[in-house]
């Protein structure tokens, strides 16, 4: 009889014990969450120290008097300008105007750039034809589009949106193409054996797999939207376009009000940083962490 000399095999219960034992050995131990104090020390303190250093150097240069006050005002004068604007009661409206333009333009850019990226990626001749143009457009400063859109659309909101779109759509599309290029072929093969074909493969495998690259594209798309918007508001101002941060900057220049100019620059910077910190950074961290692409915060 074949196999007569085989030693007794392990019983089913033994196998269960072996399996769970090995699983326990191979599972990583969960470490406790980071303490609040350590978070403050590790993540909050460095940027605060950097800001304080910059302000100090600024104040010192200002005090040394190398430049007259109206060319280089000190931090306090800029702060006063900010406070003055705040008491005028229009600051939030001005920021809101710009942010809503930027956000709407960005969303439109996502709506156009996403299918465009998918199309460019999936059809090889199209990619050969307009891929380089898309990449080239990314490096074209969007200010260059301002005169053209003003001629096309006049001093209207449409002109602003046109500039924002021309600035952001290539970034979004390119980000998606880069994300799709990085999808491991194994995922596509696995999807096909599971029966995901055509649109179902796009929805269940391709797009989720490309998400990290796409997100990077979105982040850049927002940065380009915001920049293009500021350029458009700065150069082409009219009542029809509303009064945004760009116009505030231009008003400061016309009035030779350097504290106001610097205060506005700070506001523009703050909006950019806030959107990144409040929207994109958490989104990116979530996506990377769930995929195990991010080490736990030290």
């Amino acid at each position: 009889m074949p196999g007569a000399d085989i030693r007794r095999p392990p019983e089913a219960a033994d196998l269960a014990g072996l399996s769970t034992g090995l699983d326990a050995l191979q599972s990583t131990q969960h470490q406790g969450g980071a303490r609040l104090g350590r978070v403050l020390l590790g993540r909050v303190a460095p940027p605060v120290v950097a800001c304080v250093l910059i302000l100090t150097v600024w104040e010192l240069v200002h005090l040394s008097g190398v430049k007259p006050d109206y060319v280089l005002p000190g931090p306090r004068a800029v702060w006063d300008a900010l406070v003055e604007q705040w008491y005028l009661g229009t600051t939030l409206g001005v920021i809101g105007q710009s942010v809503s333009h930027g956000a709407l333009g960005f969303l439109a850019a996502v709506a156009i750039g996403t299918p465009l990226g998918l199309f460019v990626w999936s059809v090889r001749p199209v990619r050969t034809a307009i891929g380089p143009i898309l990449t080239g457009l990314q490096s074209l400063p969007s200010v260059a589009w301002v005169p053209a859109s003003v001629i096309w659309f006049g001093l209207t909101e449409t002109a602003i949106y046109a500039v924002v779109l021309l600035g952001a759509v290539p970034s979004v599309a390119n980000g998606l193409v880069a994300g799709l290029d990085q999808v491991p072929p194994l995922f596509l093969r696995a999807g096909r054996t599971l029966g995901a074909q055509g649109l179902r493969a796009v929805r269940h495998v391709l797009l989720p797999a490309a998400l990290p690259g796409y997100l990077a594209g979105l982040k850049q798309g927002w940065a380009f939207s915001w920049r293009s918007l500021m350029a458009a508001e700065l150069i082409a101002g009219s009542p029809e376009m509303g009064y945004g941060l760009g116009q505030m900057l231009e008003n400061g220049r016309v009035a030779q009000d350097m504290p106001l100019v610097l205060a506005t620059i700070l506001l523009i910077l703050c909006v950019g940083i806030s959107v990144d910190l409040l929207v994109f950074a958490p989104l990116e961290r979530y996506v990377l962490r769930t995929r195990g692409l991010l080490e736990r915060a030290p």
Partner: protein
Amino acid sequence: MSRPVYDSPRTAKSLATAEAPPAPQAVPVRAAAVPPALELRGVSKSFGHPGGDQLVLDDIGLAVAPGEFVCLLGASGCGKSTLLGLAAGIDEPSAGTVSAVGPRPALMFQEHALFPWLTAGKNIELALRLRGVPRRERRPEAERLLGLVRLNGAYGKRVHELSGGMRQRVALARALAQASQVLLMDEPFAALDAITRDLLHDELIRVWHEWNQPAGGARSLSVLFVTHNVREAVRLGGRVVLLASRPGRIARQWRIDLTYPRRLEDEAVAEKSKEITEELRKEISRHAGS
């Protein structure tokens, strides 16, 4: 003898007895009474190359009976993975036909190929969803499959939180979720450490047996398992098929009539492995002159 001993699945056993006594040498592929779960007939595959087509698989004829466990063994360049791609229906053969009963064969890779943006449970549910299982039934079925591979608590776990062996078990559960009658495995344990691999061999055989129990209805599960490890092949397979390299063609076959579960260190396994290794070495030496 009260301890449980796995029995060969019904179908494989009846086939084995139909072909008894086992020939000491090659076992000829014979048409069985039951239609095979997977059949490749005169399958050839060549890939276009600048210097002319390169023949990778040459006239492969292979039938896997319902419930049978077949190991496909070969050195590098024998076209093992190509053959599985054809059997899975991902690629098209250059000549010949591939037919499988039931839904599209499930395929497991050396890498787990689980989707990292989904939890372990959701990975399985995606397979169920693509198969057309209604939403309400997916979660319980996914939990059941996870239980089958002994990962009861792993439903909400992310792929990166699982060990290599656990990942391959989730991948096995996902493959089983396709409810195919043919499971194709492309060196699924090659990247694991020896201890884990040894344990997964036992688990795979257990799952295969459970799937083939009469309680599961008339469903059978045939496995076509590709490996370059002779011992692994002998330990798992009811039949071992040796592929020659360049081009890949079937060199010899052995029926492995040892009771399950087998152990890697069993003398009978060692003996059979030795015999097959000799043959494999001869096969490799043929290429010395070329």
